[in-house]
């Protein structure tokens, strides 16, 4: 007989009109790594929030270690030995690792005793799971991978036996992800139970023992990982056959649309964020920028979109030098009018206003255009009409132009941004992380649209931390490391190994 760490029976939860979970049941074996996969909006996060006490289920029961329990808040979850590592870390940047770990569990009136005890405990944990975290490092100065390990330590320090990780590899480099998996395996060996929420099939196949597939708030499959393959899981997730490959015919690129010469960006502390970049993007080609997050790709996109002023160098767009021109109007507005579209990396904080309805977001950035107005006011009906078109063409759900965008899933939010930018018919489209946090069904769709645009003769600059995506879409790949371009590879010849080396800063 198997012992179950967690059993969920018939969990249902609804938010207003949205049924986030419907009669969800699953059993998670003690000492296993259990994957929960599903598209965005499949109800994975809601389910875990119920397990961690953030929400109360409308119906159903939770059994922890064989006993039925009610979890009303995260304190009760922690007391039951459930720990959670959030996608967005809950750390105080200016505190040391040790201080962050005792935060909320200081143990006594005086900090000193608690800290000393924590230090010993931490040493043991560090050794046991090969976490390699320095307790005296300031958290803000650590890399993302290390910060994540601090979160894991935090949960372990609070006595977690069951560890929930929400999309843990979304922010990691392949190497960091590998390290994380080693840690997870070590945890498993020590008898801990790990719940891994993800939408990456490769991870599920690599590391989990069992997997639960969710779709539309329901469980559509509970299987042992050894019994399935990637394709079966993908089909289960989206409920239909999907192709993970991108069909792309060869196309001879046209004239350069944008040429960048000697582009540099230096921040206030004198750190070179962009260092002497030279490249061009031509009509009808997708140029991919590969690199580990934080190596200047974000800054490059922002500079090209006019959101930041480069410190040196020039940007020539369709024969016109954009840099150095002075204008009273903000540059993103001017450049957008010239035909530079921008799908920003951080769609929820830049590309959209979550509090606004879909039809208002459909004109963000294009809100000055005369076509959206009738006299001095917005032509509301025209806007709603346009949004309906977006919804239809991009299969945005829920199909309600008046819905607040914040209530949509990540994939649908991304489709709103993409629909808007494509509608403007740009000659150069800057695309940042087009499929981050986006479900497989939508990824396929977004990739197709990007290739279509390329075939129409648009120039596309694609920044992504997903190597597979870069390799599948790009005609040429530029690799960035430390703000510099460390190499260029033709899309069809690229191998992950070669790109990986370049991403590590090995120049060609």
């Amino acid at each position: 007989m198997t012992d179950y760490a967690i059993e969920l029976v018939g969990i249902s939860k609804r938010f207003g009109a949205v049924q986030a979970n419907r009669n969800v049941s699953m059993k998670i074996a003690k000492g296993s790594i259990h994957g929960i996969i599903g598209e965005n909006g499949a109800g994975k996060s809601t389910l875990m929030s119920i397990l961690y006490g953030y929400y109360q289920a409308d119906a159903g029961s939770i059994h922890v270690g064989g006993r039925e329990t009610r979890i009303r808040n995260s304190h009760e979850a922690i007391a039951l030995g459930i720990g959670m590592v959030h996608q967005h870390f809950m750390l105080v940047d200016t505190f040391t690792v040790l201080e962050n770990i005792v935060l909320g569990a200081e143990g006594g009136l005086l900090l000193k005793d608690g800290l000393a005890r924590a230090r010993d405990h931490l040493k043991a944990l560090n050794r046991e799971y090969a976490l390699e975290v320095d307790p005296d490092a300031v958290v803000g100065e650590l890399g993302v991978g290390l910060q994540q390990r601090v979160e894991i330590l935090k949960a372990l320090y609070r006595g977690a036996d069951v560890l929930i990780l929400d999309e843990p590899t979304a922010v990691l480099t392949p190497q960091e992800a590998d390290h994380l998996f080693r840690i997870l395996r070590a945890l498993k060996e020590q008898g801990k139970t790990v719940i891994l929420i993800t939408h990456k099939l490769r991870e599920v196949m690599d590391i989990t023992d069992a997997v639960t597939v969710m779709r539309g708030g329901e469980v559509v499959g509970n299987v042992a990982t050894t019994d399935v393959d990637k394709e079966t899981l993908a089909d289960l997730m989206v409920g239909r056959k999907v192709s993970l490959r991108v069909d792309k015919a060869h196309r001879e690129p046209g004239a350069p649309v944008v040429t960048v010469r000697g582009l540099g960006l230096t921040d206030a502390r004198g750190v070179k964020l962009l260092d002497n970049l030279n490249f061009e993007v031509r009509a009808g080609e997708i140029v991919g920028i590969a690199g580990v997050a934080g190596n200047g790709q974000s800054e490059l996109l922002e500079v090209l979109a006019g959101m930041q002023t480069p410190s040196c160098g020039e940007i020539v767009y369709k024969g016109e030098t954009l840099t150095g021109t002075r204008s009273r109007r903000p540059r993103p507005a001017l450049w957008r009018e010239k035909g530079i579209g921008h799908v920003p990396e951080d769609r929820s904080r830049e590309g959209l206003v979550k509090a606004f309805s879909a039809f208002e977001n459909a004109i963000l950035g294009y809100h000055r255009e005369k076509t959206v107005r009738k006299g001095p006011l917005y032509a509301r009906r025209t806007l709603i009409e346009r949004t309906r078109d977006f919804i239809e063409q991009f299969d945005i759900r829920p199909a309600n132009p008046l819905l607040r965008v914040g209530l949509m899933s990540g994939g649908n939010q991304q489709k709103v941004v993409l629909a808007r930018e494509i509608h403007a018919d740009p000659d150069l489209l800057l695309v940042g992380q087009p499929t981050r946090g986006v479900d497989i069904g939508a990824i396929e769709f977004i990739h197709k649209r990007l290739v279509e645009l390329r075939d129409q003769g648009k120039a596309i600059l694609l920044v992504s931390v997903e190597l597979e995506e870069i390799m599948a879409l790009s005609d040429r790949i530029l690799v960035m490391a430390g703000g510099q371009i460390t190499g260029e590879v033709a899309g069809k010849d690229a191998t992950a190994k070669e790109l990986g080396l370049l991403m590590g800063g090995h120049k060609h």
Partner: protein
Amino acid sequence: MKFGQPSTLPRWASLTILPVLNLAAALLVTALVTWMIGEDPWECLKLLVSGAFGYGEGIGYTLFYTTSFIFTGLAVATAFHAGLFNIGGEGQAYIAGLGVTLTVLAFDHTLPAPVLMPLAILAAMAFGAAWAFVPGWLQARRGSHIVVTTIMFNFISYSVMLYLLSHHLIEPGSQNPTTREFGQAAWMPAMHDMAAVLGFDLPSTPLNASFILAIVASVVFYLVVWHSRWGFELRTVGVNEKAATYAGMSVSTVIIVAMCFSGALAGLSAVNELMGSTHRMNVSFTNGVGFVGIAVALMGRNHPVGIVLSALLFGALTQGGLELSFEKPVITREMILLIQGLIILFCGALENLFEPFIAPLFKRKD
């Protein structure tokens, strides 16, 4: 209710039931205090309501106060939509009074009313806007916090106005720091006079054409904020500066312009007061109208309909409270302030106090 959790109430309920419950709670605590000082709460409430709405004159005064509160409420809401907390409505209204006074004193014997009045109204808006421009500019370009600067600008306006009134604008030979009476050309048409023209007989009150201006301003406010390009930029900057930058909006321009509009709206309350009622300027004629505007905007949830309704509530409290304090000497002006304070506390600060209790009533059945 945990922060960030989606509200479980339907929108209409959170806009109607919650404010009513909050108001009831505030009145309940007031009743308790009234009872503790030995008065009959029920009788006091009746006096208050009848003082505000019970007879024609009372209604006129209530609407007169309401007018000023609508202006300052809209002023606070404008800034709030840009993510700014304009505490300086008081000072902006005060300085706007200077604009009115200077214009009127200069031209009231030379220009006819149809020219002078719009000119004085524009002067009020311009002066109010100018007084709000400086904190707005400091916020947008230098990062000085708007709350701090607008509070300081209130104090500066008090001192400036006291100096000007007692040294330069004072009526020659007068002992009181007030200006001379404005010429008739600068008197806002009183509501009872306008009604008389149409054949209605209304009691004589300070209620004047500014009330119509306030309603027009509310409608314009709605259209501008929710249906115009500038309103779109205003709201975008207010909730997400990063998205505003991405969309090619100039965040600092929006902030500065929002503050100017805010100041201009606050300035219109001076028109109601000076050109509509007192017909001369005196020291601290604003009498807290800018601060009440904060409560009005807060309770009205920065929407013109809510602002008009909550301005009416505060107008009624002011008028009814005055009547009440005539009748009951124990109920002082401070008591009325207490009621206002409680309403602000319950409607603003404790906005969601009752939500968890009534949420189950609205739970959908599966």
